[in-house]
């Protein structure tokens, strides 16, 4: 039975505006439109507030609790947050880490997002994979042990069409037990069609919940529509998608505010679509082709990242926390014990990169270049079992 989501009266757009989390400045009287209100609130957070937040039932969400946990005052409680997050994650997920691999299908793009290596303004030789090339890549991925694959593409609707994705998913079904996608926004009918074709999860980052920043960073192309982007996870859930992946590109604006907005979005989706499972990812701005790191003044330290991950875990006991190979190996290894439940390994973010025949440009620099087998070994050393396959659609005769 598909989620009907009939009874939540308020949509996410209104929730964010009312809470003053989208810098539209529409609702709070003392709000001057650039999220200073929440930053000021967090500056005022005292140790007592953090302790109160930590004594609330672990894994339960309240906005006030998260404000305390992402505030500067909570930095002194990081070890405690980490311990609680570690214990809670083991309790809910076991001593396991799921592994997945991204399959980049194209880097042709009609958007011009300022932070991205695939920005249409950047001049480089673009690559798209035919279905057969994509299947070759998938074969390499499968031979590494993966059974969970994420199809990734830039805004290349002309070539990476719905039919293309449906055909590819159909052909991958026999080899992969879980197929998700991270591609451009679609409408409900398209999501429903791809769900039927075998794609069960959609990852779609809002990138930033701050409307003004969003406008700046996405000046052109279909992705420049903030509201359509914000609504897309609703559409995926209504179409039956079982996994919803949320995230912001950390470093575009203040991470503390973004975490609050991200949590409100997740909470809204969890309440409205009770049969879908929400995950968070943590893409942190990293150097990319033609995009200079020093342009961005909100970059997160490792400490900030740990605080964000543990704070979210303490508010969402059952959400997936996903880590990609953007992060360097030593940090990833530590984060395994801090609430992470899913990781990629041996990733190639350039289309055709797995079969080694492409000199195509990567979306971002990989900082963990270890092979999947090496990553699996490290996971085992940390006392966890790497899980390649979590479910098999063969169980339900699909």
């Amino acid at each position: 039975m598909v989620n009907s989501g009939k009874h939540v009266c308020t949509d996410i757009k209104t929730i964010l505006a009312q809470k003053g989390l989208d810098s539209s400045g529409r609702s709070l009287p003392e709000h001057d439109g650039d999220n200073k209100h929440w930053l000021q609130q967090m500056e005022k957070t005292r140790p007592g507030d953090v302790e109160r937040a930590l004594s609330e039932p672990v894994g339960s969400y309240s906005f006030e609790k998260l404000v305390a946990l992402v505030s500067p005052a909570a930095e002194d409680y990081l070890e405690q947050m980490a311990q609680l997050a570690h214990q809670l994650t083991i309790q809910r997920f076991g001593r396991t880490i799921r592994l997945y691999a991204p399959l980049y299908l194209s880097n042709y793009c009609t958007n011009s997002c300022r932070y991205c290596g695939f920005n249409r303004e950047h001049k480089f030789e673009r690559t798209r994979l035919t279905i057969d090339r994509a299947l070759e890549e998938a074969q390499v991925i499968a031979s590494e042990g993966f059974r969970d694959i994420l199809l990734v593409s830039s805004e290349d609707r002309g070539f990476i069409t719905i039919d293309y994705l449906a055909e590819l998913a159909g052909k991958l079904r026999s080899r992969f037990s879980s197929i998700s996608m991270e591609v451009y926004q679609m409408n409900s009918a398209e999501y429903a069609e791809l769900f039927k074709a075998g794609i069960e999860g959609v990852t779609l980052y809002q990138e930033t919940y701050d409307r003004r920043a969003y406008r700046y960073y996405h000046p052109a192309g279909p992705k420049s529509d903030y509201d359509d982007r914000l609504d897309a996870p609703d559409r995926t859930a209504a179409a039956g998608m079982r996994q919803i992946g949320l995230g912001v590109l950390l470093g575009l604006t203040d991470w503390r505010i973004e975490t609050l907005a991200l949590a409100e979005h997740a909470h809204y989706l969890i309440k409205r679509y009770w049969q879908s499972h929400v995950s968070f990812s943590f893409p942190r701005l990293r150097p990319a082709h033609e995009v200079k790191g020093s342009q961005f003044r909100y970059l997160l330290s490792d400490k900030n990242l740990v605080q964000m991950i543990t704070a979210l875990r303490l508010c969402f006991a059952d959400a997936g926390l996903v880590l990609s190979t953007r992060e360097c190996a030593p940090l990833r290894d530590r984060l395994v014990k801090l609430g992470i439940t899913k990781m990629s390994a041996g990733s190639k973010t350039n289309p055709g990169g797995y079969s080694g025949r492409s000199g195509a440009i990567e979306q971002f620099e990989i900082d963990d270049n270890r092979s999947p087998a090496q990553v699996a070994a490290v996971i085992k050393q940390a006392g966890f079992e790497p899980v390649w396959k979590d479910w098999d659609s063969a169980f339900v005769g699909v």
Partner: protein
Amino acid sequence: MDKLIIADRSFNSRLLVGTGKFASCEIMAEAIARSGTEIVTVALRRVDIENENDDMLSAIDRSKYLLLPNTSGARDAQEAVRLSKLARAATGINWVKLEVTPDPYYLLPDPVETLKAAEILVKDNFVVLPYINADPILAKKLEDAGTATVMPLASPIGSNQGLKTRAALEIIIEQANIPVVVDAGLGLPSHAADAMEMGADAVLVNTAIATAADPLAMAEAFRLAVEAGRTAYISGPPATGRKASASSPLTGFLRDE
């Protein structure tokens, strides 16, 4: 206390009261008044032809209380739907407490028949308040079907055992987008306060008030307990003691930043 909103109506009281098991209509009416309730449940029964004096409805001032007929006695969806329609014909309002209890010993509600009946009644424009066991999935399915609330039991009707289904109630309260009314088995005012502190939107009490030695005082006690519990819930809990951690095995590496 913040207002309770069910369907399109708002209420000041979060205590619903049942009218069964009282020694007399007069005591029942006075207990209802002392409880501060605004919603009162009643059952439907065949008129006793031999004894005219069994009309209790006149004791309830319908301008002050919303009459909420229940379908107690129904053993399947069909009977529950029939009773609901009779109730609507009698009162002229379309609110119904859906109760389908095939088991005469514990009076536990039948989940399958309850869901079936709820779907039929919602389509027929009833405002449905379904009585269920504390089953979180059933609660979501009823919500999807369009019921106005869910009413999970704390323990079997009349058992006065309190919140035996606490763990499941917590999940229901966390997941629900409609009001959660904890109904059945609340034996003491502290049980009611506990339910409200957990985040329940309201509670329904019958046996504990009706069969108390002093029902009027007990009704008053429940009124106070529900108010206290709700006020506590919206005021936020205090911090419970926590030991600080001396060493930092998980985050020590960050100090090198």
